[in-house]
């Protein structure tokens, strides 16, 4: 975590086509430690695609991702980044604890222990419940708990507030704020109006890039 304080994410000239349709081109932005970036735009404007490119799950048609001054492939980028997408990435037959233990084995242990993280996302006491017995909002909070138990700097969140109630939204907002105030960064999409006043928030409207 030694480079956490001055971690930077730069995106240069990124463009992407989907089915012969230009989603965005010559997209440039920078995010620094302690900052977050909100992607806005209508449905189908390429927000999720951009996030998947940032994760390395999808290849961009052109452009570069630079992490701490180095090309993403040559740096610790993929170790420092965590992604929560539309799909929860949890196994519904396994219990909450089994899912988190597996996530921990795949990653690098981070700031919080599993029980601390469950406490933070208000799932304490659900350890032994199979995930299919949880509600949609609880599943969402579980997938966000994964971010807390593994070591990461950059959170990439695709609609993190889906199916959460008001308290859930406030909870996740406070987790993001907390993460950012400790030198982390976040890139997220959301249709929900963010109320994180003390958040160093940048916005990019994807429609404008056409």
């Amino acid at each position, binding site marked *: 975590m030694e480079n956490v304080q001055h971690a930077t994410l730069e995106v240069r000239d990124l463009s992407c086509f989907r089915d012969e349709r230009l989603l965005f081109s010559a997209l440039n932005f920078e995010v620094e430690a302690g900052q977050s970036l909100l992607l806005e735009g209508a449905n189908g404007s390429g927000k999720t695609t951009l996030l998947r490119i940032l994760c390395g*799950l*999808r290849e961009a048609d052109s452009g570069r991702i630079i992490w701490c001054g180095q090309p993403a492939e040559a740096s610790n980028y993929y*170790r420092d980044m965590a992604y929560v997408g*539309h799909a929860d990435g949890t*196994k519904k037959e396994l219990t909450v604890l089994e899912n988190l233990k597996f*996530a921990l*084995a*795949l990653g*690098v242990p981070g700031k919080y222990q599993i029980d601390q993280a469950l406490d933070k996302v208000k799932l304490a006491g659900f350890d032994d419940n199979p995930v299919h017995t949880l509600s949609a909002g609880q599943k969402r909070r579980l997938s966000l708990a994964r971010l807390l138990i593994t070591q990461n700097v950059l959170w990439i969140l695709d609609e993190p507030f889906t199916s959460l109630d008001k308290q859930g939204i406030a909870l996740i907002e406070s987790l993001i704020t907390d993460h950012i105030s400790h030198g982390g960064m976040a890139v997220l999409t959301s249709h929900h109006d963010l109320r994180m006043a003390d958040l160093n928030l940048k916005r990019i409207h994807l429609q404008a890039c056409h």
Partner: protein
Amino acid sequence: MPLIRAFLAIIRRDLLLAFRRRAEMANPLFFFVLVVTLFPLAIGAQPNLLQAMAPGVIWVSALLATLLSLDSLFRSDFEDGSLEQMLLSPHALSVLVLGKIVAHWLVSGLPLLLVAPLLALFLGLPEQAMGTLWLTLILATPLLSLIGAIGVALTVGLRRGGMLLSLLVLPLYVPVLIFASGAVDRAAGGLPVGAQLNILLAMLLAALALAPLPTSIALKMSVN
């Protein structure tokens, strides 16, 4: 070693999942037993014919049972997003993929190995061929899982990949089938089988070294 821990965690998780979905997981084994036991009924009371056909029948059924079980290798991971998380893991993807293949073999290949001698007895396979049947199964069922994984990884992103998967994988399965059932056949006739077993062993070692990498690349393509 974190990498070994991740490898073992994948195997443990997949075995646990298989245990929780045991009805689904038992299907290929059920299919194997069913096909082999139906043969004597269809052919009738011709013990010599059955005995001659036994190696082929057992091996064709084992191969089809494996083919049937292949789709479950990456399908559910692909659908619930676990596969994405696996791709994003800092650990070497091909090692994680190998973990999944090992778990798949433990769930689908190992049971075949355990019931096959019993079914061979059913068909009247001579006793001197039992050892060879076992050896071919030990060598070749992991080989089927390894080869199959490449095919599944390529087709997991497709909505109806089943047919394509068979087309991709079957040609690669044919040499395995020929050498494995050939070895059992020769053993039943009292002939030496060293050459066939060595070839199967060589194919298994080659697949162990060569299959995980293309599988992980194909998975990345499927997620893209």
